[in-house]
């Protein structure tokens, strides 16, 4: 057991966490978030992608204790990061508008079964915030979409990239 202090989607948390618990397990089982999904368990598929201080990481390869002192963003935190939204909504407040990345994925039909979608959107957001350092098709190769929506996903990212500044 150790005491872990970290940020999650804008909130500050302090938790007692057993050493062996993975970040995927912490998010799913203790914090009851459904957006971070373990699939391959080896850091290959990207379904468990979360942002750690803004950088995409595979939560299945991180011990929960390793997030001590860091900020974690999951898909549940995306709406609050919309341009124009400055804080997590209070309990009972109406749902915030979707983040532009979510809207672009909806508009482009950039998902089918939806299982990989949270991880894919977070990777796409990181790509855009990094200023598109390489072709999107190279950057997103760490996120598998078995339904094969790659063309639609790349279209959504290209559209977001062309509206520079909207998403960062």
């Amino acid at each position, binding site marked *: 057991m150790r005491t872990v202090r970290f940020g999650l989607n804008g909130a500050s948390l302090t938790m007692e966490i057993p050493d*062996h618990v993975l970040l995927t397990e912490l998010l*799913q089982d203790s914090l009851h*978030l*459904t*957006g*971070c*999904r373990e*699939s*391959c*368990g*080896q850091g*290959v*598929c990207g*379904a468990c992608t979360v942002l750690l201080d803004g950088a995409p990481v595979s939560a299945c390869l991180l011990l929960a204790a390793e997030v001590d002192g860091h900020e974690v963003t*999951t*898909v*549940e935190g*995306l*709406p609050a990061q919309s341009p124009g939204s400055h804080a997590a909504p209070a309990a009972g407040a109406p749902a915030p508008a*979707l983040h532009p990345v*979510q809207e672009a*994925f*909806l*508009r482009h*039909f950039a*998902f*089918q*079964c*939806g*299982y*990989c*979608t*949270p991880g894919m*959107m977070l990777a796409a957001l990181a790509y855009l915030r990094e200023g598109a350092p390489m072709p*999107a*098709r*190279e950057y*997103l*190769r*760490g*996120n*598998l*979409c*078995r*339904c*094969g*929506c*790659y*063309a*639609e*996903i*790349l279209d959504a990212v290209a559209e977001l990239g062309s509206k520079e500044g909207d998403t960062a």
Partner: protein
Amino acid sequence: MADDQRGTIGTSPPRTDGLAKVTGSASYARHLRVPGMVHTALVRSDRPHARVLAIKCDAASRAPGVVAVVTAADLRRVVRHLHHGPAFRDQPILAAEKVRHVGEPVAAIVAETPAAAHAALPMVEVVYEDLPGVFDPVEAMQPGAPLVHERVEPAGSFADLRGLEPAAGTNVCLHFRLRRGDVQAGLRSVDVIVEEAFTTPATQHLPMEPHATLAIPGADGRLIIWSSTQSPSFVRSELAYLLGLPEHAVDVRVPYLGGGYGAKLYVKLEAIAAALALLIRRPVAVHNALEDLFYTLNRHATRTVIRSGVTRDGRLMARQVQVYWDTGAYADIGPRICQKSGYTATGPYRIPHVSIDSYCVYTHHPPAGAFRGFGIPQLVWAYESHTDTLARRLALDPLEFRRRNLLRSGDPQATGTVMQHAGFVEVLDAVAQRLPFARSRSGHVARGVGMAVGMKAVLTPSTSLATVHMYGDGSVGVAAGTVEMGQGAETVLGQIVATELGVPLHHVRVLHPDTDVTPFDTLTAGSRSTFHMGNAVRRAAEDVRLQLLDRATRLLEAPLDVLAVEDGGVVSREGPRRALTFREIMERTFGQGGTLVGRGEHRGHAKHLDPATGQSDQVTAFWFAGAAAAEVEVDTGTGEVRVPRLVCAADVGKALHPRLVEGQIRGAAVMQLSQTLFEAVATQDGQLLNPNLIDYKALTTAEAPERLEAVIVEVPHPDGPYGAKGVGETGVFAVAPAVANAIANATGGRPRDLPLTPERILQSIREADA
């Protein structure tokens, strides 16, 4: 735009499951948690074929957090039958006397946490006596090969499989025969005869959400089964059979599926979860890890030998095909694949003399079954690669050679069923127009274009039932057993009902399957839902519409023929304008709240195939036609292949939601391209060498074609809803041979084994040069 918001047929409104999926809140079976729930780890066999002499569970039973360790002997206390299966009841819930493949579940450890269950896995000691195994379907057919099963019983669950009679003392669980014309005489009459052999390996569906089931026992003996299944109705009836319960005692509920592609059909984890829940009297979760997918079900490895006779002017006269399907240790749905896809093994061509022998063969590999395309991609791989070989031999243009021989309306298919309403020529022309033949070379990079066309029959017979419920406020619920696994059925079924009732799409809610509530549906597979369930919900909505009109005749005191349904109400079209909203009709009919229920059904009919000749004048309700054209770049120094452009055309009858249809065509193409270039379950003596995503490569954005085009072709079917057929699989048919034909066009080499690895490409170039 106004039409889009209404969700009218032929437009592309936003997916009704979209918000849940982009917010990450969509529920999948493996996310479900209930109080008192326990977790399971399965002890899996590490032997391909062995007698189980003893299972020592004591140490594991005493491990911290372990609730129970269960073997087949324990299951017999709560199950009436231990064996299940859609074609043959050959698969035990847990292995009893023998194990027949690596990864077969032998015991179940149930514990308070997943970690406790997995920690106890190495504490279970299974004592085996190894037995000789057989790992190749052709070897398994030889006399004296080790027998996988001494005898098997037909399941009798499906009308088309009821007559199967497996021969005792052999590993061939089905030999499908088709004979038409006189193939020997046909071969004697031609100028050119070419024989080739093609193989495909076992491949894995890889749904991003591996199987998950949660079984909740009730005090009254009932069971609630939450499961990631594509066939809730079958799971209910099969569990009722296994447990000796009436069907009403088993309630199968299905949330969204994180992909299916055929992996989640029939009974997978549901039987073990249900039996454990009855034994332990607590809610039991059983989740597969990704590795377990490879032990549960793969796509059939195949070997196809194809021999054709053609005249010098390019007329196909005779074709003989033998197909060997490695169905693994348990038949699953292999026999239906062997037969229903087997009868298309000569391709979408008009050939007077044909013979097909399709063998479904047991081996000691993990089971093989349905996988997007249901055996068709393996067959098209063979006959369309072969088509280009023939065209080359005859020095004919491959497109023209195909057009000369393709089935057209009125031609008999190999079964004798007359081809109608299927656009083989249309889909081929569609891809050829967009991506015409070309070949070029710069340095060591050879570029070429290739194409292919394939066919599939829809599963027949099958049944879909649905009810449409109008609630007191005029909003609508649709009870349909179709599973939403990404294909967009929830959106399209909602669109159909919204269109029939003249209400906006958001007034309609399509329920998740729940067998207590949603009527019977054969399964969500085989591209059958748009046609079958689409017809069922359309008729159920019509039923509601007629009931509303009937009530309106009295309320408006107007005859039926002047009334019409529009804009969420009924209006009188004659005399002074009078109108009632649906809500007003409901309130005036029922007073405070009520429900109108409409019923609809659709059943596809077929006539049985003659067992000696495979002939039937009505073998299927309809046909799918799909074509692909690929542009490749081959590095002739390394053998690496890039596919910068891929065009797929599908005859869908009518695109009810064009964006979703395009998504299905593209998604199928991506999945098939991945299998074409990369995917193979590697095995050695029955052991799996790569059951994980590091060693089993699947295609990502980096290897996806820069241009991936989906072409919608609409040859309407008179019995389909608005003319629609279906689209889930059509995009997979022709991709692999289109890529191989493009490689042959570019390099002169002819690869005949999938996947198209650099080693194989180099080898094929060397053979061509020699």
